[in-house]
């Protein structure tokens, strides 16, 4: 048992159990160590991929079709790296955030472990049924995390989220069952060559059900209704995990299915996805510009930024640019959104209130956090030199190449709208506030610097695009 692939799934489950038994104090310590080890494993996986191509691991020595295979190609490795890289600072952040004997912490650590284990397993799974299982683990752990605080708003949001996530995974499961009925297998690799555009109607139905279920889980407009309340009311580290990673997991799955078994039947749906994505960008931004609450602003920004991911579908195919753009957006947004929720958590920690207007004057009080927020905002606006900029550059490039001008207009409009809601906060921060309105709470340094680290990473990604794209190319048959 020395394969890092297996450890990436095992470690979080182990420390989740440990944290449950030991309680929040030592549990936090255990979680931090565990995630650090996971990051190390993910780096090992990435390194070995660059040297030797796709890696697989048969659990317990029983390979597919009898047993369960874990496999990592470039895309999976990027997701694994992103997940551990986002999780590590957030675990340190959460350790400080929940420090003061907060009851929430009892549930946070075990659930966070479940969540990370589920995510890692999802990225590594190779058959549709295992993917369903991991999807449920991720979904239930996420709902649990949203309601950890236990106040009425969180529970209402959590129930709504529970409904959405269960409906989504049931639709997915129904689709898997239909596919199994037709072809007698759930392995993605085996299904690939079997499905073509002349497939029976049941397969089309299955594809539709699975994709819609996953879109519901990814909060694509108009299925986004559950996201703002859930991400907007959860504790800051939870919102960060959910917005940065969980919605990306179902998107990852859509991408996998789209590029894999459903490739022959995806042409029609591609434009629908792009259309919904465009509306999501405009709708999410519009709400982010108008909401009064800070965390809801950040949550609506997630709705908008997820829209960009769906613009890539009509552009996939002739070359790799669109896929590169999508992947870059996933990575950049993951880091930036985690940073932004973490920074927002610090602002709220200082003020005790969650209104955009309460940010007034923090430029003097919390320069590091404000810097973190601004850097994350840079990525969301797609300004250079950030990961978000590279994503948008590639996306515009792909759209222009295929002559889809309206996509360019949407992308640019989305960036400008993002600038409006990001600078809405920054403007407040620079306002000079009379002394009596100023609050004098102390903010632990750890909260500020972990947020800063995440934001700086989202910008640094923009300077290391080459490595990410090299990793992404592994396991893809690149058209000449």
């Amino acid at each position, binding site marked *: 048992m020395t394969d890092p692939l297996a450890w990436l799934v095992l470690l979080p489950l182990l420390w989740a159990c440990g944290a449950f038994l030991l309680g929040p104090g030592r549990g936090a310590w255990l979680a931090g160590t565990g995630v650090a080890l996971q990051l190390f494993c993910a780096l090992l996986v990435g390194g070995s991929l660059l040297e030797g191509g796709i890696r697989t691991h048969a659990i317990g020595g029983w390979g597919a079709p009898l047993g369960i295979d874990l496999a990592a190609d470039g895309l999976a490795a990027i997701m694994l790296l992103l997940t551990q890289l986002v999780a590590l600072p957030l675990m340190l952040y959460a350790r400080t955030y929940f420090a003061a004997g907060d009851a929430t912490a009892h549930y946070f650590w075990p659930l966070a472990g479940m969540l990370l284990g589920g995510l890692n397993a999802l990225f590594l799974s190779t058959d549709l049924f295992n993917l369903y299982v991991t999807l449920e683990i991720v979904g239930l752990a996420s709902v649990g995390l949203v309601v950890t605080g236990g106040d009425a708003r969180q529970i209402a949001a959590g129930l709504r989220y529970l409904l959405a996530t269960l409906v989504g995974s049931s639709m997915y499961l129904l689709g898997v069952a239909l596919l199994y009925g037709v072809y007698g297998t759930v392995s993605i690799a085996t299904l690939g060559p079997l499905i073509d555009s002349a497939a029976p109607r049941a397969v089309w139905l299955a594809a539709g059900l699975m994709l819609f279920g996953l879109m519901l889980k990814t909060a694509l407009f108009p299925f986004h209704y559950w996201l703002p309340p859930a991400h907007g009311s959860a504790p800051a580290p939870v919102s960060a995990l959910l917005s940065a990673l969980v919605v990306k997991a179902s998107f990852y799955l859509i991408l996998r299915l789209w590029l894999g078994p459903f490739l022959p039947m995806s042409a029609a749906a591609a434009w629908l996805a792009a259309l919904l994505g465009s509306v999501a960008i405009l709708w999410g931004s519009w709400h982010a510009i108008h909401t009064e609450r800070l965390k809801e602003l950040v949550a609506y920004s997630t709705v908008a930024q997820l829209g960009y991911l769906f613009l890539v579908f009509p552009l996939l195919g002739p070359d790799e640019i669109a896929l590169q753009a999508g992947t870059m957006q996933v990575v950049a947004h993951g880091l930036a959104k985690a940073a932004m929720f973490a920074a927002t958590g610090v602002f709220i920690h200082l003020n005790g209130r969650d209104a955009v207007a309460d940010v007034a004057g923090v430029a003097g009080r919390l*320069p590091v956090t404000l810097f973190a927020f601004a850097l994350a905002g840079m990525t969301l606006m797609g300004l*250079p030199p950030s990961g978000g900029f590279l994503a948008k*550059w590639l996306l*515009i490039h792909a759209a222009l190449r295929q002559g889809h001008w309206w996509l360019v207009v949407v992308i640019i409009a989305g*960036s*400008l709208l993002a600038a409006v809601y990001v600078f809405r906060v920054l403007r407040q921060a*620079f*306002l000079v506030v009379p002394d009596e309105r100023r609050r004098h709470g102390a903010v632990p340094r750890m909260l500020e610097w972990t947020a800063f680290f995440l934001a700086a990473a989202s910008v640094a990604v923009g300077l290391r695009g080459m490595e990410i794209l090299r990793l992404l190319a592994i396991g893809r048959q690149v058209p000449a």
Partner: protein
Amino acid sequence: MTQNELLPLALLASSLVPGLIIFALPQDHIRLRTTLNLFGALAKLALIGTLLAGVAVGEKYLVRYAVLPGIDIVFRADALALLFVTLSAVLWLFTTLYAIGYLEGAAHLNRFFGFFSLCVTATMGIAMAANLFTFFVFYELLTLATFPLVVHRGTARAMRAGTIYLSYTLTGGALLLIGIVWLSGLLGHTEFAHGGAITSLVAVGSVQDWQLQTIFLLLMAGVGVKAAIVPLHGWLPHAMVAPAPVSALLHAVAVVKAGAFGIVRIVYDVYGIEFAQSLQLLTPLAIAASLTIIWGSLRALSQDDLKRRLAFSTVSQVSYIVLGVALFGPIGTVGGLVHLVHQGIMKITMFFCAGNYAETLGIHKVSQMGGTGRRMPLTTLAFSITALSMIGTPFTAGAVSKTWLSDGAQAAGMNWAIWILWISTLLNAAYFLPILWRCWFQKTPAAWPAENILARGWRETKWLLLLPPLATAGATLAAGLFADLPWSPLAWAQLIAAREYLQ
């Protein structure tokens, strides 16, 4: 890494590193902050000296770093880059000194000087960018780094100015981005080259003229926002609510200059002057520049707020550079390029002086300026020299620019442009001479609006506020009187024009 690769990076680092350290310093480490600032500025000048000497004898300085497949960040310190780099670095030193005096004891100075250094770093990046991708990266960085400076005072008015500034510049940036991506999609990734990067590519490709013309329009709209070309100039008069050193930065060191420089780069090194002429792009550009020159001057006439008048004057003067670029021929090029430097040293002096009047006597309006010549003779002397130079009085920097520009217009056969220059000269006189008359010949009022700094002997204000405008006013005279000596801005502009047209 060879020395020729390290030098451009060191030039960036000489303002970036001190800036980042300053962010991390506690607010009360005044001496350390000042030392870092000055050390950075002086180190930058030393580096530039080495580069100038190298480029003059044909040395190549280039460094590249791959970001995406086929897309690199490339810096190249060529003659044109160094013109802008030298101007910015010299004026940065003076502005830093001035800012230290101006903002003494104010709040959030770490933030101020930190972002100030970032602005200068971004300017260095813009100057040395060797392809449009790199140019865009630093162009947007400049927008972001300037915002905290524009809103530094934190008042509602400053916020409004900041919002207007951002809405203009970010929209412009978006257009620029579309243009750049479109161009690189059509013709592949191209680096700046004398005589035009795309000329040779277009010959073999199947690109249509209308595409290149539309892209040119997008690019010009993008950089035209910062260069304050009418009707994209609306942000500049609002942004003057910022403290005086920031106005100096916007008008002379970085922002407006970055826009004008972008136009120069795109016309000469992306399209190529001859190819741009063959696409019939230069005449519309010249017309836009002419309209801006006249419109800016007309608006300046009616402004009572001194800094607003200066802001509209900048709108007008920066388009001299654009006009020089658009005049097809080496003489006009020299005129435009030399005005890039001359406008910088003139306008920075005027903003220093306006800051001195405001800080020392509380004077913000032209109508309050009566008798200031007796109370603040040195400041007013500096102001007068540069105002006369702006008008184009003989033996000043402004006269050199205007002579070369009108000769260039004649050589290009665009005689109407000479008329524009003359009308502009008259308008310049009409909005500057009344100020000079008020300063020197009107009676001193019984009390100044708010006299904050008392005169001590010849020191009419703090010496840190006094020396920078005197030095730059001296430079204005020197650039005019010694224009024919080697190493003058004019000589360097001639070197660039020679390299640009001999290809």
